[in-house]
């Protein structure tokens, strides 16, 4: 088990190197730092001096891969590639293009992100499993059919409509909760209710339908038929046999997204003005802050790979038949 995890972590390294090479290529080779400077300073009134100044302030004035101007190891380290890309492996994200410390920002913004992502995940799971069980229990009847139709309808509505609709209906017309904003400590709760409700509702369509198919898949298996043949009543079969086995794909599906919860939700956070990592990313994209985007790409891929490793471990825990080798 331990050896397996070590191997998986080792396997993650070439992938992270690939991610970094790709972002390095996109940000520094396809477009030179000169282009970035010109975009930031505006196209019209750009003097070569101001471009040089902009680059020097942010450390983009070094050579890309090999610095011939100095001697010794700095030949390789005093370069953009080393400064901006290799250092990411030590989780040293450096400074954003407007001079803020990215690592500090990320640490600060993680909590609000988790404060809405975790409740959404839990509430969503609860609703989806209940709804899916209901449909599976009444499978083939009009309850099931109308449930599936409702799911397809809910799936067909863009997340943006849920958010705007929820804000207008619950926040503006009914005045049940503040439309957007955030506060520290326990005061944050009243700001979190609306995004959590909307986040959970917008996931019902796709989630419940998927879980329903998991349940139905198990419900058609032989051991379930045996259980029924033994004379167990339907609800016992459903909770004891079907639910337990259908939890395997559900749990693994949840585990794989667990690490990415840190990244926050792009839409919800920016619509509700929650200072999490999702809104951080969107702001960076809108301000065209390449340093933050690069840091978030790296962080995102680390968390994704972490999710893949976790899901393998989770498999062995929820399903004793699976052995890692």
């Amino acid at each position, binding site marked *: 088990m331990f050896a397996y995890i070590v191997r998986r972590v080792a396997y993650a390294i*070439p*992938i*992270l190197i*690939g*991610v970094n090479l*790709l*972002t390095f290529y*996109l*940000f520094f080779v*396809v*477009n030179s730092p000169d*282009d*970035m400077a*010109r*975009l930031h300073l505006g*196209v019209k009134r750009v003097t070569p001096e101001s471009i040089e100044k902009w680059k020097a302030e942010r450390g983009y004035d070094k050579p890309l891969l090999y610095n011939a101007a100095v001697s010794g190891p700095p030949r390789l380290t005093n370069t953009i590639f080393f400064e901006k890309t290799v250092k990411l492996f030590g989780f040293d994200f450096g400074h954003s293009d407007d001079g803020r410390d990215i690592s500090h920002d990320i640490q600060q913004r993680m909590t609000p992100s988790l404060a809405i992502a975790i409740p959404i995940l839990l509430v969503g799971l609860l609703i989806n499993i209940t709804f899916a069980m209901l449909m599976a229990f009444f499978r083939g009847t009009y309850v099931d059919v109308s449930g599936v139709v409702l799911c*397809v*309808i809910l*799936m*067909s*509505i*863009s*997340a*943006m*409509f849920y958010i*705007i609709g929820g*804000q*207008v209906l619950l926040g*503006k017309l009914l005045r049940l909760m503040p439309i957007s904003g955030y506060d520290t400590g326990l005061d944050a709760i009243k700001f979190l209710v609306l995004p959590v409700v909307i986040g959970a509702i917008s996931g019902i369509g796709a989630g419940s339908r998927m879980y329903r198919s998991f349940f139905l898949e198990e419900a*058609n298996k032989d051991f379930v038929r045996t259980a029924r043949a033994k004379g167990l009543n339907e609800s016992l079969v459903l909770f004891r046999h079907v639910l337990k086995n259908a939890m395997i794909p559900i749990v693994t599906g949840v585990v794989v997204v667990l690490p*990415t919860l840190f*990244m926050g939700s*792009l*839409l919800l956070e920016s*619509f509700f003005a929650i200072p999490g990592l999702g809104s951080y*990313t*969107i702001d960076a*994209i*809108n301000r*065209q802050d*390449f340093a933050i*985007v690069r840091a*978030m*790409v790296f962080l*995102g*891929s680390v968390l*994704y*790979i972490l999710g893949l490793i976790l899901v393998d471990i989770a498999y062995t825990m929820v399903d004793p038949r699976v052995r890692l080798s």
Partner: protein
Amino acid sequence: MNMPVILWTDALVFLLVAVVLAFALYTRRQPHLRAPWRHVLGSRLASASSVVLLAYVVIGLLDSLHYRVALENASDSTEVHYAVEVLSALDYLLGPLRTRTEKTYSAPFATHLYTRETVRQADGSQIREYPRLAWGGRHLNDPEADFSHDILVRTATAGLQAVLLCGLILVLLGVWLARRSQRTVGRAIGNILAQRTRTPLLIIWMTLCVLVLLFFLALNLATAYHVFGTDKVGQDVFYQTLKSIRTGLVIGTLTTLVMLPFAILMGILAGYARGWIDDLIQYLYTTLNSIPGVLLIAAAILMLQVYVTNHPENFETALERADIRLLFLCIILGITSWTGLCRLLRGESLKLRESEYIKAAVSLGVSHFKVISKHILPNVMHIVVITVVLDFSGLVLAEAVLSYVGVGVDPTMNSWGNMINSARLEMAREPVVWWSLLSAFLFMFTLVLAANLFSDAVRDAFDPRLRQR
């Protein structure tokens, strides 16, 4: 003479149409391929939604025929100048909608502006009032008295026209069915109405009726009013939503077209060749997959923006600039979304590789290329079809989110994402401007719902696992 303009996405759209037509013709002659499609069309929901989808496609295709109007020549020189604006066949048909702009916001079916303005009276005094619209309800002498009567007359006219056309369609369907099954037209129509046809023609006809009614309603009402109101700069919102259809369709379809060759080639190759090729391809898609999709798209779009700002000379018109961004968005969305299909195809080819008929083919000395093209490819096609159809609605929805994040289509391009994005601020206004959001919602929801229902039927028909149950 007008100058036809073929944008990059136009060319690809028509290529796609050609591919689909070729595929359809090929399918017609292969009974084993025809059967699942029959099954799809046999489902009531799927056949109704395919009619809706077809209507969207027609609008989208009309909007893909672009041209630039030749300007009136003032001097005697023979050189022809063209307008900077690129129009489409749809713009031509919707001419009045496009040109009839108001000053600013006006509600659906309004005859007056949504905001008060200071108007100077004839005697020099000034009053604050809601001024009449320049176009909406212009033909009414006294809006308060005539409005409801006018709407009633126009709706009734539309209803009458729709009834006539629907009747005609029913008769034509009957004639077509009668010629195929050698019955009388009356019997054929009776069969349709009693749902005794293999394809649910009654459902198809009813969906058509709804569409025809909507068409005539639009024809009668939208020419005299702004049926979905006007936006901040006074442009007709109905026109904007109709124009947005093309953007949505292009994103939903071209993305798949772009990624398909890669996904098929890589997936089959990885599964068939195994060894280091498999490792390499797996590495490639795990790497691409591990980058958060939105961020990769953002990075690529930022790069494109830098390129476009630094090379303005390559793009003659604003639409061309917007178009290259749309194309680029499709490509980058394709790059982020091919991995799922690739993994599925790899798994399937790994399985097929061990099957007896492929082992037989290999031992008989058939070349690898032939094995892949003759034996593996046809046997994984159902996965490709299912994925393509399933991905469509997700991509249409993704466009809206990306536009909101600021890395979607060009802000000047008509798209549902841009409409929702601007509606976000309008919803915060007092009083609320809700019609942009409503019309984007209606059109997008209809398209995505139809696509979802259709793709469900396709999956049920093509997935052998599901069919056994």
